[in-house]
């Protein structure tokens, strides 16, 4: 069992790096999804306002 510590170190590094990278990706994706939801709802509200104002103006012009 000579050099077991080197074997252990190599496999630990591999799984630690992959674990932290996946964790980083999941957290980043969760943050982006949240931003996307807020932006989409903001855009929906502005579009509704735009449609409302357009309808009011066309009624007023008649």
């Amino acid at each position, binding site marked *: *069992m*000579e*050099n*077991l510590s*080197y*074997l252990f*170190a*190599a*496999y630990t*590094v*591999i799984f630690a*790096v*992959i674990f932290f*990278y*996946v964790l980083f*990706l*999941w957290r*980043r*994706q969760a943050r*982006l*999804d949240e*931003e*996307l939801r807020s*932006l*989409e709802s*903001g*855009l929906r509200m*502005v*579009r509704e*306002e*735009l449609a409302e*104002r*357009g309808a009011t*103006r066309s009624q007023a012009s008649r």
Partner: protein
Amino acid sequence: MNRNAIDSLGLVTLVLMVAALFMVFVYVPTEAVQGIVQRIFYFHVPCAWVAFAAFALVAISGIFYLWLGQQVWDDLGYAAAETGMIFCTLVLVTGSIWARPIWGAWWTWDSRLTTTLILWLLYGGYLMLRAMADDTPQIARFAAVVGIVAAADVPIIIISVRLWRTIHPAVLVTRQGSHGLEDPRMVATLLVSMAAFTALFVWLLMLRFVTLRTRTRLNFLAGELGRTRAAVGDL
């Protein structure tokens, strides 16, 4: 991209990885000369394989981006470069850990090690460019060119053991033409590890690609929101 497909691939990766670990630590016989530390090889070589595949994908995506100008190719190239960088780092680190007990040194300026370090530095530069510069089409074009030029180092690394004198073991491409693995259980373990790492690479690539596509959509929606707000202000 379908999230169920990504989750399914994650599960397949997990199963393959458990199988590979079982084969590495239980099934495969210990190598006669190097002893137990040679088992690093079964994850070191697959890391190199997926790093090379990733950088080849960066070059292919770069060519398509320069040709078609579609954002999706830029996102794919960026995702492949980042994923490839993870595996290239693991190749260098595990190789160094393996070298210490076998060669008596953490690092030596051997042709294969040096060309691999050059590859790592080239794609490190690519990722620094992407991280520090704005997301403009000009930067994307520049990054595509860097990605294509840097990939030229991959075939040099592969044939470096034939071109120059080296102490790096040539397992897959030996000067004698044999694969260097005499026991069939060693070959089987290497193949399962290769499959596990290929699945892991595709899974990580898909995860990263999805984040980049989401970011692209965010940028588009932010522009759309600005334009719509301006239209509301005009009324």
